[in-house]
């Protein structure tokens, strides 16, 4: 049992040291002999045991005596720990690959591959930004009326992606281009739900609603521009007017619509619909009924949409 542990440890150390590489080869030979039910004739295990005992004995005779007596059981314990930790490490790698976090979808906690937690941060709807955990809330699209929201239709059998985001939220701004790329690459259907998580950005909800109402085609250009724009200027109505005009809108018509009482009422209804999803931060992306909170790597969205072999499609 000791050979297996030694082989793995020495293989890693062997990357940096030639002497350990040689020992790793001996350990491998020992492992191969053991798995084919032959005795280990290289004396590798004896050699390593003696070396370990020689090291321990200079620090503690009692420790060395204990180690000598229970070397085999200790080897088994370390073996199981190794198997366990290998399983959890592999699981962590898989989860990171598929969800962007070693701990699973939308789970916070330290992940060695994402030490700063970039993939799990989001802007909270209560304006505390950033946060990383929403507790055990169940996010759902059930009972949510999506009919009035901007919709970019894909091809036949297009899979729907519902994106809840805010122009002023850094995390939404990071995720949005990836979702657009995904929609373009796989011909998915995109439904955009604007939710203002920043102060004074309610106004942009009305602008968006009106722009889509006036010209659904040009709306997506406007949307792209607002997500890419300098966010400190999004509260500046004059700036927004400029963006509207760049997208080919009549800014006055949009402004007029935005200040209409009817628009305010509809937007309030829409925000109420968004809240029915139980979402607690932006961006929240529903793909195939799976909710992904925070800006994930592109592959995570792609896997959620097309499966693990997305890159073959």
């Amino acid at each position, binding site marked *: 049992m000791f050979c297996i542990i030694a082989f793995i440890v020495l293989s890693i150390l062997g990357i940096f040291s030639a002497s350990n590489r040689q020992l790793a080869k001996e350990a491998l030979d020992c492992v191969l002999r053991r798995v084919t039910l032959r005795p280990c004739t290289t*004396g590798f295990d*004896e050699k390593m045991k*003696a070396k370990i005992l*020689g*090291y321990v*004995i200079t620090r503690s005779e009692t420790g*060395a*005596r204990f180690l000598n007596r229970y070397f085999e059981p200790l080897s088994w314990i370390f073996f199981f720990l190794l198997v366990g930790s290998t399983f959890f490490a592999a699981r962590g790698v898989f989860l990171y690959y598929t969800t962007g976090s070693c701990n699973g979808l939308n789970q916070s906690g330290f992940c060695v591959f994402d030490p700063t937690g970039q993939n799990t941060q989001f802007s909270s709807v209560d304006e505390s930004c950033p946060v990383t955990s929403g507790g055990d809330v169940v996010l759902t699209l059930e009972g949510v009326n999506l009919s009035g929201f901007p919709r970019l239709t894909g091809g036949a059998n297009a899979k729907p992606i519902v994106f809840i985001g805010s122009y002023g939220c850094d995390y939404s701004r990071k995720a949005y281009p990836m979702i657009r790329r995904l929609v373009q690459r796989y011909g998915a259907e995109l439904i955009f739900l604007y939710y203002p998580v920043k102060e004074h950005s309610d106004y942009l909800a009305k602008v968006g609603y009106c722009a889509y109402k006036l010209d659904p085609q040009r709306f997506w250009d406007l949307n792209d521009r607002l997500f890419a724009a300098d966010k400190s200027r999004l509260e500046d109505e004059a700036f927004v007017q400029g963006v509207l005009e760049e997208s080919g809108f009549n800014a006055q018509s949009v402004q007029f619509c935005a200040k209409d009482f009817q628009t305010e009422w509809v937007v309030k209804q829409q925000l109420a619909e968004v809240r029915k999803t139980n979402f607690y931060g932006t961006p929240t992306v529903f793909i195939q009924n799976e909710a992904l909170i925070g800006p994930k790597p592109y592959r995570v969205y792609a896997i959620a949409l097309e499966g693990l072999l997305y890159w073959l499609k």
Partner: protein
Amino acid sequence: MNITKIRADFPSLEVGNGRKPVIYFDNACQTLRPRQVIEAVQRYYQEFPACSGRSMHRMATEVTREVDQAREKVAKFLNAGRKEEIIFTRNTTEGVNLIASALNWKAGDVILVSDKEHNSNLIPWQMVAKRHSAILRVVHTRADNTFDMEAFEQALKAGPVKLVAMGYTSNLDGVTIPAAEIVKRAHQQGALVFLDAAQTIPHQRVNVRALDVDFLAFSGHKMMGPSGTGVLYGKYRLLEQLEPFLVGGDTVSSSTYETCQFLPPPEKFEAGLQDYAGIIGLAAAVQYIQSIGFDTIEKQERLLNEFLSEGLEEIPGVRLIGPSDPRLRSGIVAFYIEGVDHHRIALMLDQMANIAVRSGQHCVHSWFNARGVAGSVRASVYVYNTLEEAKLFLDSLIKIRKVL
């Protein structure tokens, strides 16, 4: 002579790189080399790295002169009758094989060996016995591993002994055989005598003429000389009669397409280009040993062996190989602990205190196999080892014994 001063000559004993200083107790395998030997080897490569005995230019002449001087130094060191009796080899093993190959064997010839020969002085004779239908006879030692002269006398008288081939000093337990008496009795029965003196030459004065031994071989690396060097001594008249072993360049004075004219000894036994650097280094080692003196060497080895033997006897379960009197064991202390793997002990000593010892069967498998002993740990000391080192060795071993 001051041991501290001697130690200063050995670069391997210097402390460096934050490591513990080595306690080198594997001298029976090979000794460390003093600066004088290293510099002599280096001098060849730096100053006259040319062929000896062939070319006429100045560098070649210099090498020829140095090699000739080396031969003369070795001859004097052994008190040989003439320098032509010294043949340079790669090691003792090559010397044994040379004699095994060059003697004129007949079916039924008897070869006598002891029961604790190094494989190098056993396997070549086994091959001779196989190839020439000769008989290999083993003279058993006493219970304490010392030489049994009566058993030897009986074996001598039992048949036509052509050659007595024995280890002068055993690498297993350090016991030196009564060589002069053995040679005398062998000659009385008309037998030749070959002595494997690999473990003798570095530790005690050997006078081949006084011994009247016919052949004697030893290695450079066990006497502070370079690796890959050795010497075979042979009485000149016997060497003349021997067939060459390896043949080729520098062994003949002339040749035709059909035949050749061999040179006289030692040239006819030194085929091809020789290890000139090694030979020059070997001469430096001889000179170095002479400068220390065998009195100093023997005194220090005895002191250490007595200290080690006494200490080992106090450790429970330790069994010494060979006679209990350390004075009979040169610089060698071989032991084993029942139920404890000898390699483990050696590895732990190395790991704990950088103590280098040999573990295993020390190329004397026949002795171990005959007695059902798995192996032993062998500590072999030399003139540069100290009592402090011996004490640390014993302290470490006591700790190991408590743990294993």
